[in-house]
């Protein structure tokens, strides 16, 4: 799988002084910053696969920050978005959260508030990426199981013993034991608890289909 990337914060603000100073501030906690003056250029060019967060100014010429936020949500971008505004109204705040903003901060913003929000956002993003990656991996392994092994897995997850599984599937306990060993190996599970934690969801999905 791909190597862990260092997180990048995308900063979109039309004011050069604000871009420069906020980049410097965010840089002091070791986060890499990519600053964009033009929201359209940002939408066209930023790395959607990367880990990180987005800091978006609400009031920009040409296109409003809320519109950019809506576009990001529609495109399924999973980086958390922190909105910055000069004078925020309750209505604006409500719309931002409805459109999926992670935070809504007022300018001028205090360093601790901004940096903590950013670090939280990045941490959450890393976790959610890791979770979805783990999910993808588990799905791949599950696909390698044979029909019979999936049946056995389903019954293991349901809490049946080898003897009960053998009776249910009309198999000898020895054969059940062999399937069990095989599926533990294929799924890379080291314990029953880990097996159930990682694959119970997939078994439920398969049953539902």
């Amino acid at each position: 799988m791909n190597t862990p990337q260092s997180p990048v914060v995308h900063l979109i603000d039309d004011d050069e002084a604000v871009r420069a100073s906020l980049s410097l501030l965010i840089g002091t906690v070791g986060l890499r910053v990519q600053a964009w003056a033009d929201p359209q250029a940002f939408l066209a060019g930023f790395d959607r696969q990367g880990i990180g967060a987005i800091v978006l100014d609400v009031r920009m010429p040409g296109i409003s920050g809320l519109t950019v936020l809506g576009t990001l949500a529609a495109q399924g971008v999973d980086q958390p978005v922190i909105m910055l505004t000069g004078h925020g109204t309750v209505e604006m705040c409500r719309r931002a959260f409805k459109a999926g903003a992670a935070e809504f901060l007022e300018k001028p913003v205090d360093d601790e508030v901004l940096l903590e929000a950013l670090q939280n956002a990045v941490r959450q993003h890393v976790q959610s990426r890791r979770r979805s990656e783990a999910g993808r991996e588990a799905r791949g392994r599950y696909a390698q199981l044979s029909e019979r092994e999936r049946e056995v897995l389903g019954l293991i997850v349901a809490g049946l013993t080898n003897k009960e599984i053998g009776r249910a599937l009309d198999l000898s306990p020895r054969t059940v034991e062999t399937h069990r060993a095989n599926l533990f190996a294929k799924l890379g599970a080291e314990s029953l608890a880990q097996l159930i934690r990682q694959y119970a969801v997939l078994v439920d999905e398969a049953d539902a289909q």
Partner: protein
Amino acid sequence: MRKPIRRGALGVALWMAMSALGSVILARNELASLREGFETDARIAHRLLSQQAVQHDAVLASLSLLQPADATAPPERRLPSVYSQILTVERRDPGQAWSDVRLQEAELQSRSLRRAVLAQADLSNARFQLVRAAEPASFALQIDQRQAVPWTEWPMPRDSSPVRVALEYAGQSVVLQPGRIGASGWRFDFRKHLAAESQPFDVVATRQVGWSELPWVAMAFWSLAAAGLLAGAMALSRQRAARQRAEELLRLGQVARLNALGELAGGMAHELNQPLTALLANTQAARRLLDEDPPDLQTARSAMAQAVEQGRRASDVVGRLRRAVERPDGTEHAVPIDLEAAVRNVCYLLEPELNRSALAPKLVACAPVAVRADPVALEQIIFNLLTNALQALEQVPAAQRELAIDMAAHSGSGVLTVTDTGPGIAPEVLPRLFEPFFSTRAGGLGLGLSLCESLAQAMGGDLSAGHHTPRGARFRLSLPLASP
């Protein structure tokens, strides 16, 4: 342009309808009263003529009863000199014959009816004869009806009355009073038998009311009055409409001002927030860089330089804003104004609010006070002071609400004092009352009093606030007198 024309046409139509209706009512009333007068006169004439007829019967009856002896001067010879209408008295003694055969027939009739009987009538010449049979002698009277009218008691002027009075009998008629009978107009008629069986004549009274007799003066007067009334009502409604429009404009103006202020505040916030954001971020970054071990001095230094630049940028924004909204010198438009006139103007504008609070401000001015001020600025200040007072008074029961406006001249200054009996000003609020953006009202911008103070000072005056005992607030505006 169409609306005024339609209004005018409507007004004329309404006026014509009102005039016509009023005139018809007036004419009908007049005709009714004329008819009543006519009928009264006709009844009186009928009664008088009837009395006269009865008198003829009575004379005959007396002669029949008395049977005066045929002497040298029998009473019947004297009768014509007493009763002018009796032309002759004829007497038929037993064995004698009447001069006319008709008298003979009438006597026979009278004998059977036991009353006087009409022997012959020549009404065209106003003559007729009555006969009364008696024993031994019978009598006959020849009467001139023209002489039989009691003019002294007559209810109408004989020659000038418009009423025609006539007696009719068997197709003959005699006109007793000519009257004036025109060709057009309204005709009143009265016809009744004389109340005497011996003289079966009809009293016929006729009255023709001509167009000229209608109450033209009253009708014209009513028409004029209606025109005046309508014109007044229309002027009033126009005035009300104009006033409503003015109030609407005023309200719109206030809303527009508020919107403009909101826009200004929004723009200002953005313009200031950008440099402040950069400034804050730079200084905070610099602090973090200095806290590092070892401190990154070079980057911190450049961050501080950036911060300084952004501080200047913010100050430029404020300077630009000040220049943009700077008011011209307040004394430039100063003219002499009567304080009371300005107060009345503002009270007029605030009339709806005053009425809503059931308040009549007490205006006290010992003598007219004329100050030098910009009229718009002065009214703006008074408007704000009165609005504040009204808002304060809304917080106390209606019975305790009082608003007084005092005007006086004090050592070269014209002083206007607005006193209300509202909750007053809290002691901790008083020193900050004129600070910009300080407000005790939820949602208040806190610019009203600050603006008033600036305006007053720009005109060379000042504005102060204080307590009013026992309760309430007092604002005192002083401005230079027009002629110190």
